[in-house]
């Protein structure tokens, strides 16, 4: 039983982590593509149109990956989490089915038109199809987050005698207080990823002294948008999410912030340190007193419950992983704001294109938003433990009763192998697209 749960979770974690590499870029990139296309309509300068089509090419490769890795996610609810599906399917099935109906259809129908239909449709319609692709991909984020928000903070449900969760208030799914902050934070995080990617391609072209005109456009767009979105990510959206966690999942909040003991007069914020689960303290700690209470409740001496206040069964079962995930996300977020401020400052001074070290830094920065996004999700998902539906359904009660751990291990290994191949091909294709440059694409 124990190893069964372990392999199920490992397989889910592996496949969703891989899946989420792709949508975060498509969601952000679609916005940037719409921006370039709009610029082209206004200014009628060819380079904007080339830029839009160039990134649409990268978008399309990502989209394909998103689709093929997304289908296993949906299947897994049934294959590996059958009990969970049976008990909650009539609720989370709503949002998942709506995602298919309202966003995937929209996105995929108009993506084909955007890629192949420029001449057939004329510029205005072409812009419109681009916009609809954007709408589709954000709608998909909205519905999937509504699903997740229900798992983090269940609303609008009723539990029948046989243990099944049934819906009794549809609109509550979308007015869930967890949803809006999570959606905004997540979407802005996707914009961060894609603006860093755009900036990185720009820096690459400038450093290589190739496609300079595009390089400058990409770099400029990327760093400006990168700065704006990084700031929005920390404040107000990150802060807003933290307040939600403190309010609705106090046990995860304590674990995520690494508060082992409740402090009477206001909690300190831990900047650096390693959780020591045996002695129940943070090793090598650097902390600032009372800040956490202030950030969370705007009161310096507000008491925040530490892990000592909760029963062991209520606490997330992997505190160190949760703590590190959270601190990596926040740490990277802070670094992003720093580097992008620097870049925008030099852009404004008209020096950015000549500062080689900064360009190199920007070029190699693009993996980090991916890491921040993934660790952000690990924070959310590990923090939800030991529950699948917070407070109501334990993770161990959600797995399929009939699938053996040997089978899951087998399929997990299969996914690992296949995804390695997929990842390799993905890199080759994107690399090839970037290498060819915006001017010489074939479709």
């Amino acid at each position, binding site marked *: 039983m124990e190893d069964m749960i372990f392999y199920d979770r490992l397989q889910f974690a592996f496949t969703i982590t891989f899946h989420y590499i792709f949508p975060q870029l498509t969601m952000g990139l679609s916005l940037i593509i719409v921006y370039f296309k709009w610029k082209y309509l206004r200014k009628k300068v060819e380079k904007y149109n080339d830029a839009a089509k160039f990134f649409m090419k990268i978008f399309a490769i990502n989209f394909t990956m998103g689709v093929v890795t997304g289908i296993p996610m*949906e299947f897994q609810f*049934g294959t590996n989490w059958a009990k969970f*599906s049976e008990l*909650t399917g009539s609720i989370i099935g709503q949002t998942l089915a709506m995602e*298919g109906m309202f966003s995937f259809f929209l996105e*995929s129908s108009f993506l084909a*038109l955007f890629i*192949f239909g420029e001449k057939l449709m004329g510029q205005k319609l072409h812009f419109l199809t681009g916009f609809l692709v954007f709408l589709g991909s954000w709608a998909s984020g909205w519905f999937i987050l509504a699903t997740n928000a229900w798992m983090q903070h269940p609303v609008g449900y009723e539990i029948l005698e046989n243990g099944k969760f049934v819906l009794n208030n549809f609109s509550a799914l979308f007015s869930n207080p967890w949803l809006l902050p999570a959606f905004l934070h997540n979407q802005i995080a996707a914009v961060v990823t894609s603006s860093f990617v755009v900036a990185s391609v720009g820096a690459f072209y400038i450093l290589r002294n190739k496609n300079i005109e595009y390089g400058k456009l990409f770099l400029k767009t990327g760093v400006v948008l990168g700065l704006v979105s990084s700031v929005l990510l920390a404040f107000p959206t990150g802060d807003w999410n933290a307040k939600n966690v403190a309010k609705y999942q106090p046990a995860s909040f304590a674990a995520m912030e690494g508060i082992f003991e409740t402090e009477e007069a206001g909690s300190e914020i831990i900047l650096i340190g390693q959780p020591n689960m045996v002695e129940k303290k943070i090793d090598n700690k650097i902390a600032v007193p009372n800040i956490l209470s202030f950030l969370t409740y705007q009161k310096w001496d507000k008491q925040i419950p530490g892990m000592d206040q909760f029963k062991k069964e209520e606490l997330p079962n992997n505190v160190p992983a949760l703590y590190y995930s959270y601190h990596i996300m926040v740490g990277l977020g802070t670094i992003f704001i720093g580097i992008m401020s620097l870049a925008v400052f030099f852009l404004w001074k008209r020096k950015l294109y000549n500062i080689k070290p900064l360009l190199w830094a920007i070029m190699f920065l693009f993996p980090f938003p991916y890491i921040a996004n993934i660790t952000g999700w690990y924070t959310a998902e590990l923090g939800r433990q030991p529950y699948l539906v917070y407070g109501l359904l334990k993770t161990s009660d959600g797995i399929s009763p*009939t699938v053996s751990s040997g089978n899951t291990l087998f399929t997990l290994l299969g996914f690992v192998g296949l995804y390695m191949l997929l990842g390799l091909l993905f890199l080759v294709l994107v690399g090839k697209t970037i290498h060819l440059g915006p001017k010489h694409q074939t479709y």
Partner: protein
Amino acid sequence: MEIFWFIIIAVVLAVFFILDGYDFGVGIIHLFWAKKEKDKEVIAKSAGLFWDSNEVWLVAAGGMLFMAFPTFYASVFSGFYLPLIIVLWLIIFRAIGLEFRSQFKHQMWKDMWDKSFGISSLLLALFFGIALGNIVRGVNLGGVQNNISTYEGHYFFLPLWNNRFSPLSEHPGVIDWFTIIIGLITVVVLAIHGANWIILKTTSSINKQLKKVVLKLNIMLLLLTIFSLGIWQIINPNSLNNFIDKPYLIIFPIIYFSALIGLFFIKKLKKDIQPFVLSTLLILGGITSSLASMFPVILPSTNTINESLTIYNTAATEYGLLVALNWGIVGFILLFVYMIIQKRLMGGKIDKMDYGH
């Protein structure tokens, strides 16, 4: 309400098999009949342009099934664990083949992905058919052994096969000679459908030859169909009772057989669209007949201890189904609008189109 959602999901699934079905069929044709490089290119393209928007129908059907019949979703997906995951892998493999074949102009590269596209299409068609066969045949719900259930009555787990490959044994596997036959039927149907799609969408040099291929496949199909009906009677003597009790259901098999017969006249058909319409009806008729023969059961139990899964004992509650209907209608209207727009802009032969570069 349950009936309503059952119909909607059946339609969405049928659309998936009609749309993605030609994709699979194209893969099969590509594997066996496309010889010249130019034809291969065109044929792969006739599938490649649309596969991801077609696959969305699978996702949609899955989502709706999850929402409307959660118990069925949970039972079937965990019970058919291995074949489903294999289907997933094949879907991924096929997509890789399609997307990557034309990325490098190197013969070996192309050949490699051509084969992966073709073989995974073939296997997918086979597996989907086997899945249908399993659903029609039924499974050992509750994992009954010596008259005692080993799981809750609506769960089961099937091995890939048992040592006799027999649908009649107490613990049938996923693959047995009955499901294999249904699998073969599916392969043949989809190959016909794919050939008709190529005839419709391209001007490849093998279009004439493909009509002959369709004829041959059609003969095979007729034989296999009759054969499978016979076997089905042996496995489950009551299999056709629904048609006797509710005679209006006969319309579905009639659709199937008229399309089958119609396809024998393929050479006489003047318009390229006509064969495609016929094979569309063939798929539609096939799926609806199978479902109609079981209704309202959606997964028969092969033991007498646990009752079969029906649309009633697996459905979500009334309220959920009702709100879903409201947004569902809006969704379908939007969907039709998209499809009309897409078809108006993207109709015509693929290889004659200019994609604006």
